[in-house]
């Protein structure tokens, strides 16, 4: 289905002529909060997103991700804090100006199903008061490879194709900041991969992307930095930084037959700070300060103890591990 793939080159070249906005950061958020009555949607959230950065916003359901996006998109008024979006201070008066410079792709495409793809995009081009409407729509549709479906009613498109139309719509005004709210929610693996390619291409083009997602591998693959939100901002940084913050460095060791006294063989080593058994049988996780120094010492000790070594490797913690660790902490804290 090569012909049906996204036109990544087109995305790299760009669509419109919106000048690069001024200011050091695309989004600056300072102690922002939103309450609905007594319910706290999110509180005391601060972060910055640089121009050209892909910023991942992770969190469980109800963590306040969508509310944060809606607040930054001036759809909802914050109850505390301040923010600057695309170089413009967040306020009700600045709402139209901010919304003209950004795009938000909500989780649900929200297309007019009786209207054709072209008619949907023409409506939004009008709402953004764009010039060269036909040209912009054609470029956006070509980029998501839907030009040949321009005359089709949106109701006749699959979910994945509707998502592509929504992406084309979000690109129409060549936004300074593109907010993508769960862009791959409910998509099959092929459609998901295509959306990932689109985001990667936009990233190469220098578009600032604020990506909320449940898919941790998506965030790990696409985002320069991620923030984990659970009403308050729990952690923020590059995925490898987050791993380093939350997890001690360690070695995963597997031997054919379990040691009779692992503490005597491994725990006694100067390079090893802690030893515990890990599944499967014959597996051990060793806390170490420097895996490159510890690994040879561990190998020598195991060989000396007559063990058959199957593998020794530095433990790899995924962003999912980081995320689950934090969310579990929150659950424990609530129980406590």
């Amino acid at each position: 289905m090569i012909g049906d793939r996204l036109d990544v080159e087109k995305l790299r070249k760009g669509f419109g002529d919106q000048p690069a906005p001024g200011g050091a950061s695309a989004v600056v958020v300072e102690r922002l909060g939103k309450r609905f009555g007594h319910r706290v949607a999110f509180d005391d959230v601060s972060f910055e997103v640089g121009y050209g950065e892909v910023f991942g916003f992770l969190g469980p359901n109800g963590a306040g991700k969508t509310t944060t996006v809606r607040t930054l998109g001036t759809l909802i008024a914050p109850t505390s804090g301040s923010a600057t979006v695309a170089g413009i201070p967040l306020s009700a008066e600045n709402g139209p100006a901010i919304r003209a410079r950004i795009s938000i792709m909500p989780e649900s495409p929200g297309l007019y199903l009786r209207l054709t793809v072209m008619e949907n995009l023409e409506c939004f081009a009008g709402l953004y008061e764009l010039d060269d409407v036909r040209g912009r729509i054609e470029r956006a549709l070509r980029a998501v490879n839907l030009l040949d479906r321009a005359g089709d009613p949106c109701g006749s498109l699959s979910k994945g194709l509707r998502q592509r139309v929504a992406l084309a719509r979000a690109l129409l005004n060549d936004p300074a900041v593109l907010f993508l709210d769960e862009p791959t929610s409910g998509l099959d693996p092929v459609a998901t991969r295509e959306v990932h390619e689109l985001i990667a291409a936009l990233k190469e083009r220098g578009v600032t992307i604020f990506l909320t997602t449940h898919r941790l591998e998506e965030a790990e693959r696409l985002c320069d930095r991620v923030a984990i939100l659970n009403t308050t901002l729990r952690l923020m940084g590059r995925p490898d930084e987050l791993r380093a913050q939350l997890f001690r460095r360690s070695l995963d060791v597997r031997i054919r037959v379990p040691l009779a006294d692992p503490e005597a063989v491994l725990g006694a080593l100067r390079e090893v700070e802690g030893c515990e058994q890990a599944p499967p049988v014959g597996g051990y996780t060793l806390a170490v300060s420097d895996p490159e120094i510890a690994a040879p010492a561990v190998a020598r000790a195991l060989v000396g103890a007559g063990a058959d070594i199957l593998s020794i490797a530095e433990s790899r913690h995924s962003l999912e591990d980081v995320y689950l660790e934090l969310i579990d902490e929150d659950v424990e804290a609530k129980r406590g």
Partner: protein
Amino acid sequence: MSFSWTRVRAIVVKELRDYRHNRFVIGTMAFLPLLFIAAPIVQLLTVSVSATSSKLDARVGISLLYLLLVPAIVPSGLAAYSVVGEREQGTLEPILITPIRREEFLVGKALAVAAPTLAIAYAIFGIFLAATALFAHAGIASAVFSGSHVLVQLLFTPLLAGWSIWVGIAISARSSDIRVAQQLSVFASLPPLAIVALMQFKVITPSTGLALALAAALLIVDVLGWRAVAAMFDRERLLTGFGK
């Protein structure tokens, strides 16, 4: 950013295209008025040739008042759908994400409802005039075609439609369910219906002064209605269920 007619036009065009793709919407709007036209025509065709001029005037007046119910009743369903319908089909958020102001959105919605309403109301009036010219006796036809009656119809049709549209949109902006909004919007036609009833039962006597006073009142209500509905239109409440 000031009020933009380009954005208003985008909403109107989108709505008209939606009607074109779903002709049933306009078809059902036009169906009820076609039933409505029967009573006024029968009223006029059954007047005796020897009827006194006062009786003639009364028949003509009541018939034309019936026709003014058309612009009051026809737009209520469509107006009631305008905001809550977008919300329920998930298209409101993408619209509100754009730079559009609530005033622009509402004017666009109102014009999109007004266009078919006025087309239907004037078409019905045209049919009524044609039937009168063809089948009513000369005295009746002359009374109906008098300049003041035609002028009243032309003037009151958009004013009454405006009233009904803003009431419908106001209900739509505050409702969370399409069915509730459409049922409540029927009440928009009650005040015009009450005036017709009061005139029919001779509680109110139609006069030029009364007509001008009603027209002025409706004009003020229509302009204030836009402002009032804009104030009631709260993005936050529409998207989250919380808010003003």
